[in-house]
Each structure stands twice: as structure tokens, then as C-alpha cells.
């Protein structure tokens, strides 16, 4: 899992996102800003010495926002930041899920508009690539599209919270019953009932555009169209779909939203979107967008697809017989200088025993250093052994595709 985290953070750094460390404990009232009532209830809480209520972070966007408005107050916007760390939530549902999860995320604070939206989505896709996920897909939607539909609906004001609640619970049977009571069957009405199916390529934008009659939804569709064009220019045609029916916390998100899915797993791996209202709560109003990746789910997907074991990768196992110890120490040092992960054995071994040791370690290569001028080199799981001078082995291993 650590490898996946490193791959994700490395990709984020390549895009100019700077790593920040955020606290694990925050004041509850601060954390609560980004969460709905249900999510607030699930936070683990504890009492501070002065009687104020603290909570363990359940996500890390709010702590990043606090950092931007606090100790990074002097730093000019836009700021590109990334983070990784554990989050804790208490899920009282019928399934006993793990309380602790690990999230890696990136936030772009201080930039509004489609270029920033597209950058963050493209980064999310590239992160899924970098983690080694072969098949994945990112769905892009817009929170304002739904809110526009709700405005456009000839709905008595007292029913609107019920419609929102039914949709938040993804209960389309209840939604249908609520809408059946409305006087007019509008296009908005039809669109809401078809909500889970409003998904596809750019064509879905035209199809929806022909139906909506409210400015708010129309503006959302225009923005989505622009973001979609930019994503194509980012080289992300196949990986991205448009999903007008994505259901998220509509009080928090204020624009383009997106979710990433992998194969064989019933929940989104990555979630993100625009939240222009949050920074203001901490006294430094700024537009912002970002995303986070559920590292545990990612690990599960990678494990299911057979891409990785439980421990981090090892490149080279260096074994030695008594006469070769000093040469082996120098060899391991050179390998590390070239950025390889090299393990040096702690006791002498013969070549046959060393091959078994390498297999048990799970290292990609074995080098066995005896007293002679060459070292024995075995690559992969095969038992074929070549003999080369030490410098040549280092040079071969240090090649990018070696």
C-alpha cells in the first residue's frame, strides 16, 4: 500500500502539488463545515482540556483549507497542495467496516474556472494510472445541474427537502411518488426520474440541454462541455465519461464534481469536485477544487487484479560468501546510489540457498558476491544465473528498463 501511496504522491508532485502535513485532531465545529449531519455523527469525538469538542479527521480537505487560511495565509494563491494520512469514521451501519481508512488527496486552492477543474480531474486520472490500475473510469458531473432542476420544478416549497432527501438516499421509488404529486410534468421532472441514467459521452450534454429550461442547469452544462473539451486536450478521451446524475453532498459542492471507479469494486475509488464556499468559513474566501483517493479501496482493487502483494517492492537482494562481504557492501551502496532498493544479507550463504532467500524476500533480482572477479546475477523468478563484473551488473540494473 505504501508503494501505491508513493506513486500517487510522486504523480501529484510532478504536477507541482506540494506536500503538506495536516493535523489529525481538529475542533469539531471546524470539521463539521464540510460534512452533512450523518457524516458529522460518524466522527470520533473527544473533549479538549478546556471543554471544547475535538474530532479525529474524517477527511482531510477541511484541515488543508484551515492550513491555507492559517499558517499559509501569506502564501500567494493559487496554491497546489497534496497530502496523505489516515482518517477515522465510525460507521454504525449493519456492516462492520473498518474504522480507519487511508486517504491521499490533492487540492487546488485559489483558481476557478474550467481550466482548473480539468487540471484536477486530469491529475486524478493520471494518479489512477500511476497507481498501476489498468481499467478505470472517471465520471464528471456538476452539482449546479441538479440544483437547477430542483429550482425548475413546479414543486411546493415544503416538498423540496423531501425530494433532496430521497435523492440523497438514492431512493427513486420515493422520488417518483413525491414527483407524482406535482401539478405539472416538466422536463425537469423527467430528468430527475432518469437521474441515475444521465450518463454518457458529450452527446448527453446536448440531450439534456434540449430538455432543461432553467439558467442554472444550462450554465452547468456549458461549463461541463468546456471541461470535457479540455480533458480531451489533456489526452483523456476514453477514461472520462459525463454523468449528470451523480449524487453527492450538494450543500458542499458548488460546481464540477467527479468520481473514479475501478473494476471489481462496488464503491468509488476517488472522489472530488469544486467547493468554492469552504475557504470563506475560515476567513480567506477563495475558490477551490480537489479530490482524494481511498487508498484502502485502491489496495483492494490492485490485490484483486493480482497487481501487488502486501509489502512494498524490493529491487535487489545482495547475498555473499565470507570472502565477498566487503565487495557486497560496496555493490549494495552503488545500487542504492542509483535509486534501487537493495537489501544486504546479514549472514553468508551459498548461491543455492541465496536463490531461496531471494524468493522468500520477493526481491526482483539476486546478486551473489563470492571472492572472485564476477558476481552471480539471477533475474526474476527463473533460476538462470549469469556471471558479470560488479560494475557491469550495476550498469545493467540502472538502465531504465533493466
Amino acid at each position: 500500500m505504501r508503494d501505491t501511496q508513493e506513486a500517487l504522491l510522486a504523480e501529484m508532485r510532478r504536477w507541482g502539488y506540494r506536500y503538506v502535513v495536516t493535523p489529525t485532531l481538529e475542533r469539531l465545529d471546524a470539521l463539521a463545515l464540510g460534512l452533512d449531519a450523518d457524516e458529522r455523527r460518524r466522527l470520533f469525538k473527544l473533549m479538549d482540556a478546556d471543554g471544547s469538542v475535538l474530532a479525529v479527521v474524517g477527511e482531510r480537505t477541511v484541515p488543508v483549507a484551515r492550513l491555507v487560511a492559517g499558517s499559509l495565509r501569506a502564501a500567494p494563491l493559487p496554491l497546489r497542495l497534496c497530502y496523505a494520512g489516515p482518517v477515522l469514521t465510525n460507521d454504525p451501519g449493519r456492516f462492520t467496516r473498518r474504522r480507519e481508512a487511508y486517504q491521499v488527496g490533492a487540492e487546488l486552492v485559489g483558481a476557478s474556472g474550467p481550466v482548473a477543474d480539468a487540471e484536477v480531474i486530469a491529475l486524478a486520472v493520471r494518479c489512477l494510472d500511476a497507481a498501476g490500475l489498468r481499467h478505470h473510469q472517471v465520471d464528471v458531473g456538476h452539482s449546479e445541474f441538479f440544483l437547477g432542476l430542483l429550482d425548475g420544478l413546479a414543486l411546493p416549497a415544503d416538498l423540496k427537502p423531501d425530494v433532496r432527501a430521497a435523492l440523497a438516499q438514492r431512493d427513486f421509488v420515493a422520488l417518483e411518488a413525491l414527483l407524482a404529486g406535482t401539478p405539472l410534468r416538466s422536463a425537469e421532472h423527467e430528468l430527475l426520474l432518469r437521474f441515475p441514467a444521465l450518463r454518457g459521452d458529450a452527446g448527453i450534454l446536448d440531450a439534456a440541454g434540449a430538455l432543461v429550461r432553467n439558467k442554472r442547469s444550462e450554465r452547468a452544462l456549458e461549463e461541463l462541455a468546456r471541461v470535457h473539451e479540455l480533458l480531451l486536450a489533456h489526452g483523456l478521451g476514453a477514461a472520462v465519461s459525463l454523468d449528470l446524475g451523480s449524487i453527492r453532498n450538494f450543500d458542499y459542492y458548488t460546481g464540477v464534481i467527479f468520481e473514479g471507479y475501478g473494476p471489481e469494486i462496488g464503491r468509488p475509488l476517488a472522489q472530488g469536485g469544486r467547493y468554492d464556499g469552504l475557504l470563506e468559513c475560515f476567513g480567506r474566501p477563495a475558490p477551490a477544487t480537489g479530490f482524494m483517493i481511498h487508498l484502502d479501496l485502491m489496495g483492494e482493487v490492485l490485490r484483486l487484479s493480482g497487481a501487488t502483494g502486501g509489502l512494498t517492492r524490493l529491487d535487489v537482494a545482495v547475498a555473499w560468501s565470507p570472502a565477498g562481504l566487503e565487495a557486497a557492501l560496496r555493490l549494495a551502496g552503488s545500487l542504492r546510489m542509483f535509486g534501487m532498493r537493495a537489501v544486504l544479507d546479514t549472514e553468508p550463504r551459498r548461491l543455492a540457498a541465496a536463490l531461496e532467500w531471494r524468493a522468500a524476500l520477493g526481491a526482483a533480482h539476486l546478486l551473489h558476491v563470492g571472492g572472485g572477479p564476477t558476481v552471480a546475477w539471477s533475474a526474476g523468478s527463473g533460476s538462470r544465473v549469469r556471471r558479470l563484473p560488479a560494475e557491469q551488473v550495476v550498469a545493467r540494473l540502472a538502465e531504465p528498463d533493466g
Partner: protein
Amino acid sequence: MISIAIPTGTLLEGSLRLLRRAGVVDLGPDEIGRKLLVEHEGIRVVLVKPADVPAYVDYGSADVGIAGKDQLWESSGSHYELVDLGFGECRLIVAVPEASPLAGPATWPPSLRVGTKYGRATEQYMARLGQRAEIVQLHGSVELAPLVGLVDAIVDLTQTGRTLRENSLRIVDEVGCSTARLIANQASLKTRTDAIQELVTRIRGALG
């Protein structure tokens, strides 16, 4: 391959009939009852306990499932509830012994002790009424509990009310009405949109 979780028990026959009428898959109760998992023309059908359908769907082991609304009340999952399938209708009711002075909610004591298999639905119902209640989670023969003084009232499912009458229980309020529902996994809806939409359309069509 789309996989469908269908429940054992009273909803099984209606579920199989619906899948047959919709032209999704034609299976007899014996056929699926013997094997629990049948693959047939690109459809995988898994037979699970009614209360387990939401788990199979929420975790994505089944793309869609057929579950009674009574089971969905008890589940906090993240599935989509797409279609009211209309069959398997039953009511979740509050019942008390014939001899009890309790009638509707207005007559209930400050704190009511209730026995039920449906803890979450009961809790939400009592909260809606502002009624303080001590909920005793039971797993079977709920009708017995008030007769031996374990609880003041029960919250249980009934179709015809016969079992209640046989045990000298009287219905005093209705918590909700349950029918079979089609539910779908959230990721399946996104990654297999077309296949699932087609399935939903065919099932809606078969409902008439």
C-alpha cells in the same frame, strides 16, 4: 455479465416470475434452489437470504438485487433503489395483546417497551412520533414476547393478520408498507450503465 441477487423465502417465486416475464432469465425454484448460483446467457443469478440482498448489492458482488422494502429499512447501504416491483406486499405494524389497554400512539406510556426484528425502522418510527421507547431486538416468534410480558407491544410484518389473530394480538398502528424493490450497486450503475438500464427497462415493461 450482470449478476442479480434474489431472495429466498416468500419473494422468491415472485422474483423468478418477474425475471421470466421480463425475458431476463427463465429459472424454476427447484433449479435455483439446488445450486444457489446459476449462470445463464450472460446473467448470473445468486440466491441469498432476504436480509443479505443489500449486502451483496452494496459491496458490488451483485450488480442488482431484489429486496423487500422491509430489508432496506434495516440497511444503511449506499445502493440505488430503482423500481417498486409491486409484489410481496406486507405491512409493518404495531400490535399489542387483545387485553392491553393500549390503542393508538396517543395512549402509549411515557416509555414503551417494544419487541421487533426491525430495530432501525422501529427506532425511526418512534423518533418520528417523539415517543421514548426501549427496543428489544428479537430474532423470531416475535408474537410471543408481549404474551409473556417481555414487551408492551411488537413491531412486525404482517400480510393477512392471521398469525396476529391466532396469538390474540391486535393492530394499533401502521409503521409502513413494504413491497419488493429493485436495487442496484452504485458503481455498477456507472460502469455498466447500458446493461443495467436495459435490464431496468425490461423489468419495468414486465410490470405493465
